[in-house]
């Protein structure tokens, strides 16, 4: 059963030992840098700058190369996100079912644009390009939980329930 709920998992403060455990585990995998980056972000919510040297050492790369890999991928963050992350699908199928209006509505409601975080760091709003739920567009995720056939009223209701 889907056990993911609506609240963001608690993100740990930087912990060098934890980072080392993750990196050591992934360094044993072929091409494991991507897994290591996922692991670090999973633990800390972003890729802390402190982790670059450790990653570089473990994978026999320069810090710049590690940064190069990290920065290629939309998923990896440089800074922590807001307490809640809301993604609204911007791809064609969701466009065909009103995602542009839905996005504009949420932007107005929260007073931020896609890609921004509210001043109180409560909510980060991000674009996503297809969630693979296109038969029931438009789609959003709230803290990685997927919601189909979204509309303004339901979204406002869900926002209201966020802690």
């Amino acid at each position, binding site marked *: 059963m889907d056990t993911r709920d609506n609240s963001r998992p608690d993100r740990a403060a930087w912990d060098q030992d934890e980072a080392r455990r993750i990196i050591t585990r992934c360094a044993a995998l072929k091409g494991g840098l991507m897994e290591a980056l996922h692991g670090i972000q999973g633990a800390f919510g972003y890729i802390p700058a402190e982790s670059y040297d450790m990653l570089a050492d473990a994978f026999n790369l320069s810090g710049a190369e590690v940064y190069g890999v990290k920065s290629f991928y939309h998923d990896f963050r440089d800074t922590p996100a807001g307490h809640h992350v809301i993604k609204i699908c911007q791809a064609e199928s969701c466009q065909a079912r009103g995602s542009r209006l839905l996005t504009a509505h949420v932007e107005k409601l929260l007073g931020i644009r896609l890609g921004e975080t509210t001043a109180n760091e409560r909510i980060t709003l991000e674009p996503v*390009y297809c969630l693979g739920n296109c*038969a029931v567009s438009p789609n959003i995720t709230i803290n990685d939980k997927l919601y189909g056939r979204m509309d303004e009223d339901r979204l406002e209701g869900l926002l209201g329930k966020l802690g």
Partner: protein
Amino acid sequence: MRDLLTVYIPLEATALSLGADEVAVAILKEAASQGRDVEIIRNGSWGMSWLEPLVEMVTPKGRVAYGNMTADRVADLLKGECADLCLGLTADIPYLKSQDRLTFGRCGLIEALSLSEYQDNGGFVGLKKALEMTPQDIVTQVTDSGLRGRGGAAFPTGIKWNTVLGAGSDQKYICCNADEGDSGTFADRLLMEGDPYCLIEGMTIAALAVGATEGYIYLRSEYPLCKQILDEALLNARAAGWLGKNIKDSGKDFDIEIRMGAGSYVCGEETAMLESLEGKRGMVRAKPPLPALHGLFGKPTVVNNVLSLASVPIIMAKGADYYRNFGMGRSRGTIAFQLAGNIARGGLVEKAFGISLRELIEDYGGGTHSDNSLKAVQVGGPLGAYLSENDLDLPMDYEAFAEAGAVLGHGGIVVFDDSVDMAEQARFAFEFCAIESCGKCTPCRIGSVRGAELMAKIQAGAAENLPLMKELCEVMESGSLCAMGGMTPIPVLSALQKWPNDFGAKP
């Protein structure tokens, strides 16, 4: 003995996104309060997505379906007072009954993670046969089936495998492309969530065919439920001896690892995917060398889409002729169409090639969701052409589409009603390319940005920029290394050609 209530509720992303878990919890609670025993089976989705959560009650006559179930209708359901949501026997629902379910034969039918149900419904028959065959015979059977890659480029799967088989190497790999980035597509996901052993079986047969011992599934990060289900499926398959060392005492070894993507569309391109699997930036490689000869970590590698691989078990089980007897022309077998966008009945339709776009959109899809008239249809993902009402009689066939300047791609069909502004769609095509370009070639990296700017000007009324925009499209088409930059002009120019008024141009 008290009567046991058996209920199927999909454990599948669409169903969950519409409240399937809430329904499951409500059923457990309601049954408990009535003192009834209930068994909930989490199957995959049948692909009738617009009806999710689609709950099925087991009756002496068979499984009876209830569509769009909600938690507050569960009490009615258990009292037998839910006639308004009842769809009759699942197997008799016309949308499903009329399909050619070859690759998706078990999807929805079985509990996705049950190995015994998998085997009771034809699972591992193909692999058992393959274990008795020579690699060359396996490759020949796949070649003879006519199967072509379902990831987009439609390259014959058997020919690709033959190249890898013939390559001498101490190490070969099977890489499953599960990046499914095209808007309007979700068939890979449905298969992985609903019948994960089928993909594992297909990859294992591929490994036997070419002599590979290691496999990877490159899974997009937007599919966390797939990850959970595949993880468990791999564990179960290994424990049962279908994967790992000495598979079923054959002396053959093969194992699979899952690797997650990180939100990059271009990493669905096979060489970018290989770079990403190696832990690098997802930069597209120049071809040649072909991945078949110089693939993952420089070793001969089969790269196939989820559905190409998942079609192999039935080809091995039932024979090449069985498969190739479906289809038309050089498009053999079946393909999973995905109805999306502004469509009344969105979902998955597996049919033999040759069905028309109109039959899919009107007969299966029920037309637009909004009831407004249909204006445009984008087939084959974000790099596919926009088609109009006049194109709806095109048969779904790789060659027929190519002739019309369109692509079938991964089978995604995104419908737009008359509210769509095609100039905005063209601008978005450039913008998407700018966001997702790997940056290796200038026409794609810079051209896409310029294209979006030009389109913004054109949208603001400066139609005199159209010739320049067309020229830019030519440069991108001829000067790009891969289809990201090379095919972005397809949606742009098809939109301009068919709806010049939206661009402020004289028709």
